[in-house]
């Protein structure tokens, strides 16, 4: 691809947008470039961007997982519940991860082996897993975890870089290798592009889908536990609504909601765009509903823009002929 072609691509657009936002942030706030602020910028949304990585694979594969935020809440609540019942924290963490894995396998079973649409299955999961989380913790806030757990979620281990940020970096590398450098990654695209063709050419569609949903459950659980460590306490309504933020990050990254196209570089850029925008507005003392609206407007624009452009182009060509 030529340089011009690259710039015209979706990633080019995101890169331009990112540059504008970063320059604006630098001009507007003298604190933006501090190492501590850059770490905070990731840290304050770290759980969402961790889950966005696995969501990228799921959506490219032509599916969706709406239950991730509920699984985050479920894992945190299982952890808190076990801890309160007297289990040691490492065991409670394993319990939380297993609960997430089980939830993922449950989703995967209905989607991959029974053939139900993932939209319906994971919508049920969104409600059901949240319900279990709320039953476990009820209307309480469970806290009082050992100091090391809270430190893990809140303090830097390499300068200002926290364990969560390191985990994100490692996962990013793993997902990049799986998606763009492995046989499994190619299958994810093939299935997302054309499910029937993939089936007829002998691709093991079921096991690919099962693997993805199980991984989604496990990673969401990990993110939920990191969220609990960052906040230092657990509530039944933790992470409610996160699934929409996570999915919008992926869509803004240029991943097609119909599956089959998109790449991790785009999602990485989309993460940077949203985090820098949020942070910049925070430093400019724009908070609350205004912040939500600005990010919302950006997302609406960015999801509509490519479709509109395509539409106009088609009409233009139509008129010429």
């Amino acid at each position, binding site marked *: 691809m030529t340089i011009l072609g690259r710039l015209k691509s979706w990633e080019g657009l995101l890169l331009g947008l990112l540059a504008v936002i970063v320059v604006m942030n630098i001009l507007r706030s003298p*604190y933006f470039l501090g190492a501590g602020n850059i770490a*905070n910028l990731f840290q304050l949304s770290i759980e969402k961007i961790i889950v966005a990585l696995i969501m990228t694979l799921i959506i490219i594969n032509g599916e969706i997982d709406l239950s991730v935020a509920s699984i985050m809440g479920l894992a945190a609540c299982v952890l808190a519940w076990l801890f309160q019942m007297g289990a040691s924290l490492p065991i409670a963490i394993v319990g939380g991860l297993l609960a997430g894995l089980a939830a993922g396998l449950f989703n995967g079973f209905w989607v991959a082996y029974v053939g139900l649409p993932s939209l319906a299955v994971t919508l049920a999961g969104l409600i059901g897993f949240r319900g279990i989380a709320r039953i476990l913790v009820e*209307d309480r806030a469970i806290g009082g975890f050992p100091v090391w757990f809270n430190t893990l979620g809140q303090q830097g281990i390499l300068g200002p870089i926290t364990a969560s940020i390191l985990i994100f970096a490692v996962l990013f590398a793993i997902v990049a290798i799986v998606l763009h450098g492995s046989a499994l990654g190619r299958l994810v695209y093939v299935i997302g592009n054309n499910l029937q063709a993939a089936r007829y050419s002998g691709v093991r569609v079921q096991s690919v889908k099962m693997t993805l949903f199980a991984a989604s459950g496990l990673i969401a659980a990990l993110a939920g536990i990191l969220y609990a460590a960052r*906040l*230092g*306490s657990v509530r039944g309504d933790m992470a409610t609504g996160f699934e929409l933020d996570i999915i919008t990050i992926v869509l803004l990254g240029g991943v097609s909601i119909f599956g089959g196209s998109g790449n991790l570089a785009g999602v990485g850029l989309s993460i940077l765009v949203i985090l820098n925008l949020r942070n910049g507005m925070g*430093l400019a003392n724009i908070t609350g*509903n205004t912040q939500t609206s600005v990010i919302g407007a950006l997302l609406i624009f960015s999801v509509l823009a490519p479709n509109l452009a395509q539409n106009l182009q088609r009409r233009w060509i139509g008129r010429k002929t």
Partner: protein
Amino acid sequence: MKTNLLAAASIAALVAMTGAASAVDIAPGKAMDMVLLPKFLGILPFDQAHQGAEEAAKELQNSKPLQFLGPTPENSVAGQIEITTNATTQGVAAIMISNNSGDQIVPSAKAAQAKGIKVVTWDSPIPSAEGEDVFVAQVDFTETGKVMADMAMGILGADGGKFAILSASPDAANQNAWIAAMKDALKDPKYAKLQLIDTVYGNDQSEASYNQANALVDKHPDMKLIMAPTSVGIVAAAKALQDGKLCDKIKVSGLGVPKEMVAYTMNGCAPQFALWSFVDLGYLSYYTAYGLASGAIKAEEGATFKAGRMGEYKITKDPTRAKGLRVLMGPFSIYDKKNVEAAAK
């Protein structure tokens, strides 16, 4: 001299004169960035506190504008942490927090203090008091329990009855302290006929609180009163009962804003409720934070200062939190049919 004193109408002036020996005058005119962080944006009491803080900012001639920043209700906990973190990055002089995040705010508040920022809590403190310089308490939290028990007795009469509490969020330290104080007060034999049967949480969101009130009605057919120590919950509960045409069977009480409650008090749904002035609370919080940040006062037991029109205040140990310091504002105003209309104006 004596006539002069009598002529001074304001009690505040009197207090200020008698205590002049020890109370610190906070010198105005310092330019300092200060952040007022409510639990979330968009409810009346916090806007009133903002108004009071602006009034104090003007009196103290702070040329830097007061930043009134808050999260959205559904993102309150993570949002408060984010705003505190960003304010720390900006190196403001003081942050005034109505804490809705339990001890979850502690790491970010500590980080702020480590950077030399004064952290003053108001309305709702940090439960462990870690990361907090001083808490500006609206009323004595033990007193709140008694006031609520008295109102319940007053409404239900000598026969008492069953009642439930509709609170805000399970992380709100002030709510939890008041509920605990009320449970404590109920141990007194004179409240023996009052029976607390349930506590539910509407998270200070109107719709959730409305639904919780309706759920209480369905769950407990013999319930006679909903006690909501939250300005959002009390309105939602009163509306739920009014919509269900249940006001002659079940009453609402708790802590509410006269302006929002006047209709329900006049029609008998909420015969009696209490509150303090949020304008004054914002005003006093600003004076406290400004005094600490400018170095005029130190966050230690016994420090005494003058807070403009409100008079003299002293920093003391907080009896409700082992390691905490507080400035106690007080007192309560009780509202009923007789005075609610005047207060709502």
